């Protein structure tokens, strides 16, 4: 018979494990280490321009954070969430917010990275992923932030000395509008994802 302490910890641990907590924590830990010890900047391709352009690595770490959030939004059983009498959407939204906060902290751990820059990159890419997860399921939702981020680093600065408007989350000089756009995308994604709990995740 397990002792009372173990018994008390068993339920939360089972829940966290079922929700993909350990995998998410591992990915966010890796993001923190990369932000701290990885290269400071990543060079961008110079198509049609001779200008050397690079962006802070932090601008791309949002992609790994989105994958971390994806790992942490797993449901051990869709049937339970669909039939649950409790307000599951709030719980799902709380989990996402917690993971997003952890992601922002991990990205902002890098030297010289502001919280606003971390919010911009994490908010945009995580929000896109949650939005797609709500529409088609978690299995294929990584495609949205991945396509956006890879396209941005490839051609987001083509023919110009600055970053294209659709690749705003890469920009080191974060504007208030960019951060607000990212927060808006994140809130839309989170609320849509949370509301989906009543319909299940058939694509998984």
């Amino acid at each position, binding site marked *: 018979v397990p002792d009372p302490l173990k018994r008390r910890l068993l339920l939360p641990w089972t829940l966290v494990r079922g929700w993909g907590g350990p995998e998410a924590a591992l990915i966010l830990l890796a993001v923190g280490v990369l932000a701290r010890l990885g290269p400071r900047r990543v060079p961008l391709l110079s198509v049609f321009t001779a200008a050397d352009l690079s962006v802070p690595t932090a601008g791309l770490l949002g992609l790994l954070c989105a994958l971390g959030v994806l790992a942490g939004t797993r449901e051990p059983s869709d049937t339970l969430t669909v039939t649950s009498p409790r307000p599951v959407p709030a719980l799902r939204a709380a989990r996402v917010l917690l993971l997003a906060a952890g992601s922002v902290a991990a990205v902002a751990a890098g030297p010289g990275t502001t919280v606003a820059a971390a919010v911009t990159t994490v908010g945009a890419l995580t929000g896109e992923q949650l939005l797609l997860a709500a529409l088609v399921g978690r*299995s294929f939702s990584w*495609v949205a932030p991945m396509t956006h981020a890879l396209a941005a*680093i490839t*051609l987001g600065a083509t023919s110009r000395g600055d970053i294209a408007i659709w690749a705003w989350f890469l920009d080191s000089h974060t504007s208030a509008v960019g951060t607000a756009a990212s927060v808006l995308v994140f809130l839309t994604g989170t609320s849509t994802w949370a509301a989906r709990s009543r319909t299940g995740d058939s694509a998984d």
Partner: protein
Amino acid sequence: VTAVPPTGARPARGVSYRVWRSAAATGAPRVGGLLLLGIAVLTGLGVDASAGTPGWANPLNAGLVTALFIAPVVAGTAAAQTGFLRRHGVLGVARTAPGGVPRTRGLVLLATGGWGGLALLLATALIVARADRSGPFTPEMALLPLSGLVGVVSASAVGTVLGGIRDSRAVAPLLTLGLFTAGYAVSFTHGRWLTLSPTFPATFYTVATQPHGALVAAQMLLAASIAAALLTVSGSGRRRTAATLTAVVVVAAVVGVLMRVSPAPVEFRTAPDPAPCVTSADLSMCVWPEDLTATRPALAALTTVTGQIGGYWPTARRYREPGIIRPAPDAPVYDVTSISSTTAVGFVPAAITAVLPRSRCPADMSVRAAENDLYVWLEATAGAGPTDTTDTPVLSPRQRRSWVATRLAVIDRCRTR
């Protein structure tokens, strides 16, 4: 159990359009495909191709660069879809179907590769449509989008095979990241490693150059061979052994070819024989037909520069653009292929480079300083550089003659050493 009487109809061998459309409109292929189309429009409209010289090579090259992210995403969606089918037992069911697992895998390959190819062609078409296409077009330039398509379909094959082996959800995003990182990193390499770069983002084609046909063809063959090898390795039976051996031999042969061809992603186009030459005063230059309109300001700049240095150094009377051989194979090269200026001032730097004596000791600091002094002086006197500079002090004609002669002597000493 009731036995189904044979109907005599042979099982379908290929993939019909209806089946392909159905596969492309579900699951990961649809999600990835629609997103890729959206991002293809953004990138296609975002690239400002007007920065390049007129012609097809630069916009087609920018279109090829989009394959750098399209191919990994296609590989990831193929892996996700095959993994999804495997997890849910559909691949197991497919084993009992007439076409077996290879047909199901082929269906995923065609569905994801089709979306990826469509996105690549859409981005390329948008870039080309907005570029100045009045310049040259050669068959080698058409190899660029073809190379992108081969890369996308090959990446789809890699994803299909990996997804069939490992059905973990982590495989698809990790494969996408891995392929992109590898392709992106190799784009920044130099020398022989550059032959493995599937795209040429830093390459700028002029009116005289075109994509290196042999290199691009070998790269396409390599990508197709690797994809074919992976597809056959994951099959079964004697055919697998034979196909694997063939694929290995082909891959080895192509790598051998790649090690021999020049790693430079550009080569000269076939020059007209003889090239048209234009004469002004006592100077003439032989040019590519597309550059005939630029000869007047180019010759004016050349006249100014030769007039300045002609009294100190014997200068040539006939010049040629890069890649032009006949009728002046030994004439100095006057490279105006990437200059879009309509005034003589814009051609002065190129004219100075063509006229100034070439040193053979580029590491010698005194020679480099002498070359730089002469360059700055010529640029300033031709009105193309800063007029107020400490490098070109105001001197009397006699002092100037001595100043120039000293520097030319330094360069000449190096040439005769």
